């Protein structure tokens, strides 16, 4: 079904390999299954400041659902969080008939019509890591914000020991943007900041990424 009364739910971003779909009912269920199968190798630290992936069934699933309910219920032009589920369109094996959900991508902004600044985050199911999907997801997210929304700058952060995330970020053309310290499970951790400006995105923008459903949702971003 389409969502004329909440048009941001109709938003899609598609590359040849993946599709980002705004998180509604089906996407919530699909992502909860991915998270239940595991996002981190056992023994490694969570990359999240809130270790929700430690929760047993069904608390973890309900925590995820309520996180998404809250993001949509609190959406405003001046402060929004746009969560997408990531679907794999072509992994070379499935034939692409029934895209598999592989993870999550979220873009956040405050006072976007003025600042034109976003920050992004994402996670991938353990079995989908190491195949370049994270980079493809980031490329899609950056295409949406720079091409679709007219952003001038995108920021991202990663814990110092999350090398995979930093590799994706640097490969996309972000530059280092300082660092800070966060507490995670009562342990101090270095958090590295990165940023990419519009001109750096433009020098490597792709022509094989499409955005669907944005026109009807522009006023939810204060851009109509």
């Amino acid at each position, binding site marked *: 079904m389409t969502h004329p*009364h*909440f048009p941001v739910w109709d938003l899609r971003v598609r590359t040849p390999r993946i599709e980002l779909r705004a998180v509604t*009912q089906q996407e*919530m*269920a699909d992502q909860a299954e991915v998270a239940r199968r595991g996002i981190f190798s056992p023994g490694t630290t969570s990359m999240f400041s809130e270790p929700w992936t430690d929760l047993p069934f069904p608390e973890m*699933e309900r925590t*995820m*659902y309520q996180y998404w309910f809250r993001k*949509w219920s609190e959406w405003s032009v001046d402060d929004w969080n746009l969560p997408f589920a990531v679907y794999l369109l072509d992994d070379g094996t499935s034939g692409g008939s029934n895209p598999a959900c592989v993870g999550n991508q979220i873009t956040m902004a405050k006072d976007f019509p003025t600042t034109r600044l976003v920050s992004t985050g994402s996670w991938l199911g353990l079995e989908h890591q190491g195949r370049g999907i994270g980079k493809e997801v980031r490329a899609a997210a950056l295409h949406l914000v720079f091409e679709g929304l007219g952003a001038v700058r995108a920021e991202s952060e990663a814990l110092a020991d999350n090398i995979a995330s930093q590799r994706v970020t640097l490969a996309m053309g972000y530059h280092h943007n300082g660092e800070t310290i966060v507490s995670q499970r009562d342990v101090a951790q270095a958090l590295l900041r990165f940023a990419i400006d519009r001109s750096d995105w433009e020098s490597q923008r792709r022509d094989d990424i499409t955005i669907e459903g944005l026109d009807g949702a522009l006023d939810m971003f204060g851009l109509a």
Partner: protein
Amino acid sequence: MGATEPPGHHWPIWDIRIRTPRLELRPVAQQEMFDLVEVMRAGIHDPADMPFLTPFTDLPSPERERRAYQHFLSGWAAWTPLDWRLTFAVYLRPDAGPDVAPAGTCVANQSVMAKQFPIRRVVDTGSWVGRAYQGHGIGKEMRAAVLHFAFEGLGAQRAQTEAFVDNPASQRVTESLGYADDGGGVDVQRHHARRVHRYALECDEWARRRRDDITLVGLDGALDMFGLDGSLTPLDTP
């Protein structure tokens, strides 16, 4: 849903159904949000009146529709066993009566909410009926349904409601179901003081009038979300 079939989601409240011969009540998931907003768009009260404490029907489109979605979503987002708001969309069943609307039509909103329910055993209710469907007894039928859910399904001891003093239709429904006068109060609406009547229905009064033609579906799998599966220990309660 069969007992062995895995649910298509992880929000078991969505599987609850309350059925009377005339109506089915379904918690607001994606389709129900859309249906309720369409009823709201078609009109739920005389524009000259404002029966709601929060005058959400005053907003221009599309803010009005988006706020309604966000209101429904905030109920799920803020849900805890000790503080919850459950909003149902009300649909006509085939026996709704030939003069109302076709079976399957969404006609109304029925909400029930509670704080510290496992201890207090008190619920409050609120509702609205689409203008095109008023005057057919739907308001009374859906209140009977949600009272059955609260008393029979959740083990409530008391149900409360209130209405502005100039909303006789709401008061008529309330009084016809056996509620007692529970005093009055003053609320603020659009920066104006508005008088309200309060009403309460105790479990024993409900039990004397209880109907045997209302069924509950899907509640067992959701009981822990109400803190009623034995998992809520005294330490969890403030």
